[in-house]
């Protein structure tokens, strides 16, 4: 039985038939309807040019929609832009701060744009710059910071109004794995504390690990909108990587399994999830091939993503 209180609660984000046609005639969004529940960690994926940044641009008031509506915690962007903006924190894809200012000033100023008194703004700037481990650079011009530091500064800046909805547009692009993990940790903590997070990323492993729900956008249309678990369960095919003891040029025929020799000592086996592994091992053994180790090919979401944007549906692709 559904909770009536939850049913009444407005969505963190709801877009209704959102369309955008640019002046050059490009239709970036062709009627996007989407719902993100409060507290969710939501992945918005799509290939380059799919319409992700346009959608985020509309939500953050940087792009004017052609038609349709977007509501943030029940407030329409057409009805009260200021109230909507107070709910949102945005981490854009491109670095967009003044390179001559210091991180501390940037954060305090942005807080000021939200009407946050200077004393509070200074305390928050210190808190978030410390949490994101760039406090030691807080009073140096931002042009002297590394790419990873700039990305973390943009997250700190987006936190200055302590938003209820945090939108991250490829926040970890070009960031090394150690910093990326620390950023994941921070964002996960923010989400656990109650902030709704919408994440776009090209690292599908990141989306698979962090997000509970997902929408895939392609050519301005939502082609999938479901829970991560439900989406992954649609993938009927599994791929294994097998390291073999000897050369694998002559491969045996195994019904229901597609075998590919990647290099002299590595095999790729693509098969239905229902297919048993025993027959594969028996056939390989009969063919004189010894398997020394085996692992799942990562990443499952990547496989689904490619199939969705190429063919439109995972089942169709897996069939």
């Amino acid at each position, binding site marked *: 039985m559904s909770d009536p209180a939850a049913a009444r609660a407005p969505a963190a984000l709801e877009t209704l038939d959102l369309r955008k046609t640019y002046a050059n005639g490009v239709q970036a969004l062709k009627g996007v309807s989407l719902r993100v529940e409060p507290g969710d960690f939501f992945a918005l994926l799509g290939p380059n040019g799919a319409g992700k940044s346009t959608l985020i641009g509309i939500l953050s008031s940087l792009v004017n929609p052609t038609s349709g509506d977007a509501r943030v915690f029940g407030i329409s962007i057409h009805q009260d832009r200021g109230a*909507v903006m107070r709910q*949102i924190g945005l981490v854009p894809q491109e670095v967009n701060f*003044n390179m001559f200012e210091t991180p501390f*000033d940037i954060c305090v100023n942005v807080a*000021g744009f939200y*009407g946050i008194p*200077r004393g509070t703004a200074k305390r928050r700037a210190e808190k978030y710059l410390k949490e994101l481990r760039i406090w030691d650079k807080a009073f140096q011009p931002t042009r002297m910071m590394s790419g990873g530091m700039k990305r973390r500064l943009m997250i700190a800046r987006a936190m200055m109004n302590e938003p209820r909805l945090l939108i991250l547009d490829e926040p970890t692009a070009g960031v090394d794995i150690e910093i990326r993990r620390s950023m994941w940790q921070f964002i996960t903590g923010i989400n656990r504390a109650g902030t709704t997070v919408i994440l776009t990323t090209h690292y599908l492993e990141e989306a698979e690990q962090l997000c509970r729900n997902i929408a895939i956008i392609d050519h301005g249309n939502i082609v999938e909108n479901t829970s991560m678990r439900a989406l992954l369960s649609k993938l009927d095919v599994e791929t294994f990587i097998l390291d073999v003891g000897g050369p694998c040029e002559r491969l045996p025929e195994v019904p229901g399994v597609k075998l590919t020799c990647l290099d002299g000592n590595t095999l790729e086996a693509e098969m239905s999830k229902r297919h048993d592994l025993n027959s594969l091992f028996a056939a390989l053994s009969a063919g004189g091939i010894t398997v020394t180790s085996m692992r799942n090919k990562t990443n499952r979401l990547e496989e689904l993503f490619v199939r969705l944007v190429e063919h439109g549906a995972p089942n169709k692709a897996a069939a």
Partner: protein
Amino acid sequence: MNDLRSEAAIDADARGFSVARANAVALYTITRREVRRMLRIWTQTLIPPAITMTLYFVIFGTLIGRRIGVVEHGFSYMQYIVPGLVMMSVITNSYGNITSSFFGSKFGRYVEELLASPMPSWVVLSGYVAGAVLRGLLVGAIVLGIALFFTSLHIAHPLVAVTTVLLGATIFSLAGFINAMFARKFDDIAIVPTFVLTPLTYLGGVFYSVNMLGEPWHAISLVNPILYMVNAFRYGVLGIGDVPLWIAYLVMCGFVAVLGAVALTLLHRGVGLRS
């Protein structure tokens, strides 16, 4: 029912007050950022006008002015050109401040910090205009201070002088903001000062009285809005001017209203800013 209504009204009042307070904080933040930017690059913003105006005072005021002698109502040529040169500095610096700062924020994309914030358009515009006006006033004060090394001045009508310089700075801040909104490259913010602002300033009665001109040049000069600002300010400082004061105020207030409305409309629509 009455209780509920009064509660809603109190809530609305509180919300209105908190929005007003937030807007005041935002306005202060933009203005402060603009002033800090101006002071950070003082070698580009404050020193050049001081040097240029010193040269004007030395060459036109002292060397050439000595040969010209008394111009009008017993004022020396040096005294006559001081208000015009102060106004010229105020105008060019207000304009230059807002175009370079706002276009810089577009070019560096940090204008998005403003666009993605809850600030209404009028707060953004007022903040930038306030910063530009303050630079105009500061440069104007520096130039006036330098002038006092070369000649003595007694401010005839302080209120007129202050309101004129404020209106002049506001007009050219608004004009500069509109220029920066349409600008797509740095060349676009240099074209107007070079081909429009400088000729209009030089032909706006800074160095001469338009009453010295014959027709049609006298009539043509009256179309130049800078003429009204220079002469109103000269009236404020020296007590003399070529145009009636009320017409000068009418022209200046009219420009503030029209340019303000245009700038606000463009900003609200996001011309040159939003896709």
